[in-house]
C-alpha cells in the first residue's frame, strides 16, 4: 500500500460522496457528473487493487492481517459498481444520494485498509 495514494483516495471518495449527497438532496437524478465521480472512486480502487498485488512482491507487506485487508478491498470494489447500477435501474434523486453513501463507505473502508496495512495498536 502506498500511503500518499491511499490518502488521496480517501480525499477523492469523501469529495465524491459530498458532491453526490448534495446534488441528490438538491433533486438531481444520477447524471454524468455524479456517476463519473463514483466511477473515479472505483477506478482508484482498481489502482489500489493493483498496488495491493504488486506491493508485497517488492517487500511492502501489510503489518496487520492480509486476509482482513483483502475482505475490505474486495467488498469496497463492489460498492460503487452496485450504486451506479442501482442509479441506472431507478432514476430518482435518492439514487444520487445512494451514490454518495457508497462513496463515503468506500472512504471509511480505505481508511480501515490503511490502518490494517500501516498501523497496529495493541
Amino acid at each position, binding site marked *: 500500500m502506498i500511503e500518499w495514494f491511499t490518502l488521496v483516495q480517501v480525499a477523492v471518495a469523501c469529495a465524491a460522496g459530498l458532491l453526490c449527497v448534495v446534488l441528490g438532496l438538491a433533486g438531481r437524478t444520477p447524471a454524468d457528473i455524479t456517476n463519473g465521480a463514483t466511477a473515479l472512486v472505483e477506478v482508484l480502487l482498481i489502482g489500489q487493487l493493483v498496488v495491493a498485488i504488486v506491493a508485497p512482491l517488492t517487500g511492502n507487506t501489510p503489518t496487520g492481517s492480509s486476509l482482513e485487508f483483502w475482505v475490505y478491498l474486495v467488498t469496497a470494489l463492489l460498492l460503487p459498481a452496485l450504486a451506479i447500477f442501482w442509479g441506472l435501474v431507478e432514476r430518482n434523486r435518492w439514487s444520487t444520494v445512494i451514490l454518495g453513501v457508497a462513496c463515503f463507505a468506500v472512504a*471509511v473502508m480505505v481508511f480501515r485498509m490503511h490502518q490494517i496495512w500501516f498501523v497496529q495498536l495493541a
Partner: protein
Amino acid sequence: MTTTTPRRSGGLGRVLIAVYGLLALAATGRSVYQILSEFDHAPLAYSLSALAGVVYIVATIALLAPGDTWYRVAWVTISFELVGVLVVGLLSVLDPILFTEKAVWSFFGRGYAFVPLVLPILGMLWLYRHRPRPATADAPTVVPAGTV
C-alpha cells in the same frame, strides 16, 4: 379488517435501506472475520456483533419487502437493534474490559461512527410514518417514489 400498508421502500426509504444494507454487510463481515481469527479476545462481544449483523440483514429485508407481516418484522428487528446498542453501549462504558471497541454495539457504536445508534431511531420514525392504515380510508396514502 384488512389494512393497507404503504410502501416502505420508496423515496428516502431507499437511502435508509441502502445504509441498513451497508451496516448489515459491515457488521456481519467483520464479526465473521473476528470470530474466525481472534474469537478468544472477546467472545461475548464478537458473538453479539454477529447476532447484530444477522438482525441487520433481516431488518434490511423487512424494510424492502411489502406487507403487514414484514412491517411487524421490521419493528421487532429495529427495536432489537436499539435495545442492543443501548444495553451493550451502557455495559461497555461501565465495564470496558467486557466489550472490545471493535464490536458493533460497544460504546454506543463508536467504532461505526455511531451509525448503529442513529439508524434504529431513523428506522422507527420511518416505520411510524408508513404505518398500516385501514383499507376503508378514502385515498391510499402511497407516496410515489421520488416525491418525498
